[in-house]
């Protein structure tokens, strides 16, 4: 039920923006979004540790080397 509530909240915002004429389409989009995280390209990569290691091998910390002492 929580999922439905969250999606409905987002859906209602969209409905207000595009008008009642398109509300049926928006509800349909929301229904498909309930499984979107699982099927999206984001998750494909972010569940694959080996791929992340490969893609982030050059990543460096943004903290300055001059930083010292406690925060």
């Amino acid at each position: 039920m929580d999922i439905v509530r969250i999606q409905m909240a987002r859906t209602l915002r969209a409905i207000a923006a595009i008008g009642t004429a398109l509300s049926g389409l928006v509800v349909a989009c929301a229904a498909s979004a309930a499984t979107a995280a699982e099927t999206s390209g984001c998750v494909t990569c972010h569940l694959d540790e080996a791929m992340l290691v490969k893609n982030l091998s050059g990543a460096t910390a943004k903290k300055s080397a001059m930083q010292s002492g406690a925060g």
Partner: protein
Amino acid sequence: MAPLEPQAKVLLSRDFLSTTHGALACESCHGGNPASLDKATAHAGFDPAPSINNPRKACGDCHAEIVATAKDSLHGSLSTFPRVLANRASKDRWGQVEEARANHCAACHTSCGGCHVSRPRFAQKGFIQGHVFQKRSDPINQCTACHGSRVGSEFYGERGQGDVHAAKVTMDCVACHPAKEMHAAAPRDLPGRYRLDELARCTDCHKDLQYGSVRDHAIHIGKVQCQVCHSQTYVNCYGCHVGKDAEGTAFFQNRREVEALKIGLNHDAKSPGAGYRYMLVRHVPSYPEMFDFYGKDLFTSFGAVPTWKRASPHNIQRRTWQAATCNNCHGNRALFLASADLLDFEKQANRNVVVPDGKVPKPVKKTQALSIDTSRVRTGMVVDARWLHENLGKGNVVVVDARDRAAYDKGHIDGAISLDPLTSGFRTGGDAERPFVLVDHAEVAGILGRAGLAADDHIVVYDRSGLTAIALLAVLEWAGGTHVSYLDGGIEGWHEAGFHASTVPSSRGTRAFKGTVQPRFVVDSGTLATLLGKPNVVVIDARAIHRILGETRHVKASRAGAIPGSINLPLGALLMDNGALKSPAELLWMLRTRGITPDRTVVTTCDTGLAAADAFFLLRYLGFQDVRVHDEAWVNWSKTR
């Protein structure tokens, strides 16, 4: 807390997908293009921190009431900083002050995500539990990731004994600081965080103490802040220097930290529930040139705000040294903030905080004296900077610098040799079958001999924090050194005493160490198991409280936990932040409150044998007759038991 590896910061767990938040499309919070598997295209328009950049959109649809106030909470807005800075700043240079504030002070603020799903931005981010949202903030990865150096270290016993609320009743941060406080909107222009009505107070739980059975509560309540009697020493910071490096990345440098406890006059009795006269005060690292990178003479009214500010150290104990007997506090001028404690530029700022001689409570005439026997203290095991300065180069005194080589090369006590116990081969490596244990005596004696040390030298060891120097002293005692001493306060104490450092390296050539090994100083896990439960044996676990609670574990330990029947006494209880020691009387009294007395057999343990070795040496210094190190420590114990 070590930063996460880059991939670990953004690695989802499959568990997340079955949670409420996991059912949402990623792009509904973060934007980006989920249809693309190309990194750059997929991240076009991506927002890594939506709850910071747009909390209403990211969280407000479902958590509207919380977001409405939380976005203006102290964590979200740091709203007291502009007020404090404005009070100190020159009005016509506010733009430069504000630029510095935004680059440095504001880097600490956090929002929904930094408390409920990731490590905060200040702690270099990264998912906790693979992006599974946590209703209750994680005290290690979230709260103390930012509030670490003071609150976290104090609470979990990385400095001092730790906090009784953590150790005895396993309370975490949220137990005292619930959502009601965390999500409360801070009124605009709030003069300080203690003015927030929703702030946690001791009396929220400890009600009506003045009517209870504790006589001293009835006497002191209303006059003295609770922490004055119930806190341990805490760290005071000096000189926060800020700027940007060659890449334009903002940084700060905290130049000096001093562990101490000071009582000041309450200059802000208007704060809710703070009508008392005396309170603990902590030095904050402000100074007039703090923002000079952005402009000169920005703080023309520096004296408008104290630099010794009300403190609420998170290291509460029921019994403390200053409250052990009336005259540990009454008449103890050193405990109360004096003009002499102030730097030249902050006299005006703290005029209402300094306790004049006439306001230091007078000694109590009839009071029960503490009976502490210090006659067994082995005073020769600790020397101070003045003694060492007078004895440098005399007799058989040899000075050893136990810091790493880079620190030694930057400046060391003249004539000191470099011997870093962490890299010298005294212990097996982390990947050994029995990791981190002492190698055999012949090998240790060989290392010491090649460093130019002999067993009958008077070997004085120092470092910066005490941790490695004292561990080396324990090795020296085990290996047969007959006269070894710790330099109280280490290199900082040396500088504080006004003595100079040298950059000229020293060496002594190879000698034969010729020590007689002292096997009675070390016990293995099998022997320790036979000692557990014996009435005259105390096993002291010198690790921080979060290890004992099982909230963290050493990377080489098989599991989290502690040896059954051991008493947790974090090393910080024996050794102060800068490697300085409290008086033997105070240490012996503190140990006695925990049932640890010199007549008992004491076995010290920790994760890898290092802190246990420190505790071993310090207990021997205090006159304990039978002290032994559990050298295999938790890393090995946890593998087999």
